């Protein structure tokens, strides 16, 4: 048996009622290892007892891309302008997968761990963050496949490819913002579970996933369309990878970023407000 007289000197945590648990960055940093472990557990649980395992993370975006390809062969449209369609749609689809997986895992992260959060304290924000981390891991595999697609279609290398990770990061921020908002709401109103699939499905149509903004969205509505925080990073990602992609205007990217930051900050506040008593409800 271990002797407890030999305890090492520890920082002393004072748990006292404070409105802004979520902003205790020091505490969050202290629990970073937990976030990684929970993300890992999430991935393990998701693919345990599946025959294809991690392949599923790739099959889904590939299948969607193929559906788009067939669909746009049948209807006479040029949804990606002059860009080669498959790389364009696949790039959009991967980013969309990052969003939709992250948000659907993140949104239920508090309620699905109800038995844990009612029994032991740790910063609750770890749960949505771990869910988002697991989604990122999922999508990483698809990025490898995307590289293959780019090579296959002989897409020339260009300098702005180095900027691609920044746009991925921007989507991650959007995902975190949505997860904070939705997980806190889900703790109180389970209506969210019914609404979420609908919202996500609709989201794909109003985001430049299967098409590019300039090829489909009427010019006079572009200003409104750009309030979708995913428009900036999705078009930006495409622009960084595919030569000749129009990308987005600086004003649109600023709009996307501004909305993301607002969602993120209000999400943090809302989450901090809700996490204080969420266990009374879940």
């Amino acid at each position, binding site marked *: *048996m*271990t*002797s*407890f*007289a030999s*305890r*090492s000197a*520890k920082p*002393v*945590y*004072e*748990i*006292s*009622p404070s409105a802004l648990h979520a902003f205790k960055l020091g505490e969050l940093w*202290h*629990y970073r*290892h*937990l976030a990684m*472990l*929970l993300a890992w*557990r999430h991935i*393990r*649980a998701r693919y*345990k007892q599946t025959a294809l395992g991690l392949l599923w993370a790739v099959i889904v975006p590939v299948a969607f891309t193929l559906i788009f390809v067939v669909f746009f062969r049948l209807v006479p449209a040029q949804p990606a302008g002059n860009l080669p369609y498959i790389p364009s749609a696949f790039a959009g689809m991967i980013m969309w997968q990052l969003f939709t997986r992250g948000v659907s895992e993140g949104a239920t992260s508090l309620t699905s*761990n109800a*038995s*844990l*959060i*009612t*029994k*032991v*304290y*740790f910063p609750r924000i770890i749960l949505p963050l771990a869910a988002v981390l697991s989604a990122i891991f999922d999508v990483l595999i698809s990025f490898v496949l995307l590289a293959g697609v780019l090579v296959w279609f002989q897409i020339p290398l260009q300098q702005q490819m180095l900027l691609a990770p920044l746009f991925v990061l921007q989507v991650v921020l959007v995902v975190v913002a949505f997860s904070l908002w939705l997980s806190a709401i889900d703790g*109180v*109103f389970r209506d969210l579970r019914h609404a979420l699939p609908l919202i996500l499905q609709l989201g794909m149509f109003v985001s430049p996933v299967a098409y590019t903004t300039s090829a489909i969205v009427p010019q006079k509505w572009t200003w409104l369309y750009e309030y979708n925080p995913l428009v900036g990073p999705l078009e930006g990602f495409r622009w960084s990878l595919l030569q000749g992609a129009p990308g987005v205007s600086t004003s649109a990217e600023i709009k996307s970023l501004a909305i993301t930051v607002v969602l993120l900050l209000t999400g943090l506040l809302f989450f901090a407000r809700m996490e*204080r*008593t969420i*266990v*009374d409800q879940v």
Partner: protein
Amino acid sequence: MSSEFAIRCGGVGKAFQLYAHQNDQLKQILFGLWKKFYREKWVLNDVNFTVQRGERVGIVGRNGAGKTTLLQILCGITQPTRGEFEIKGRIAPILALGSGFDGLLTGRENARIGAAILGLSRKEVDACIDDIAAFADIGPFFEQPMRIYSVGMIARVAFAICAHAQADVLIVDEALSVGDEIFQKKCENYISEFAKTGTILIVSHSLEFLKKLCTRVLWLENGVVREIGDPAKVIAHYRAAMKAEQGQKSRVAMKAE
């Protein structure tokens, strides 16, 4: 050292919001500033007490007296509606962890996660994981998925994690009733060993165990501290009250017949 407090509760109160309809909750969020849409149910009311470092305090009270809510507040799981409290040091909520285990993962994997939940860093977990295995003492099962564990084995792993959390304050809720005799003995040994340096707050219905272990007992009734003090005295009063009430109830029942 001994005059230093470990737990301090000042006027802690907790009210749950009871809604007649789920819709009222939505109304509360939208129009809460102007009107109240819920009834308040106060499960804790003006709870005051201080626990010195190194004390072992037992909590007794009937079901619904607010014991678990009080522990939840002290652990930081939920917030009090009123009042303030302070705990000095790292807390380990004993046996509460078992509920967070994942049946698909092995005992070792769950133990790693459990220790991280209690706030151990990766290095600390690496350093103590083998000690946890030894303490749990479930042999090769430790490397097997937890869904094949018995209840007692799960409890062993859960307790072993808490025992290595390097806690300053041990918070025990209705523990120690699971596990076989050998393991119960081990837990009791651990707790008395822990008591030499740490603080213990323990909820239990086994009054004899509390009498043996604790330096003080707190009797919680209807959300208020009815009595706190010498274990033998408080427990005797508590027993008498329970008995009196039982007698009353059976008399009422007999009359009804």
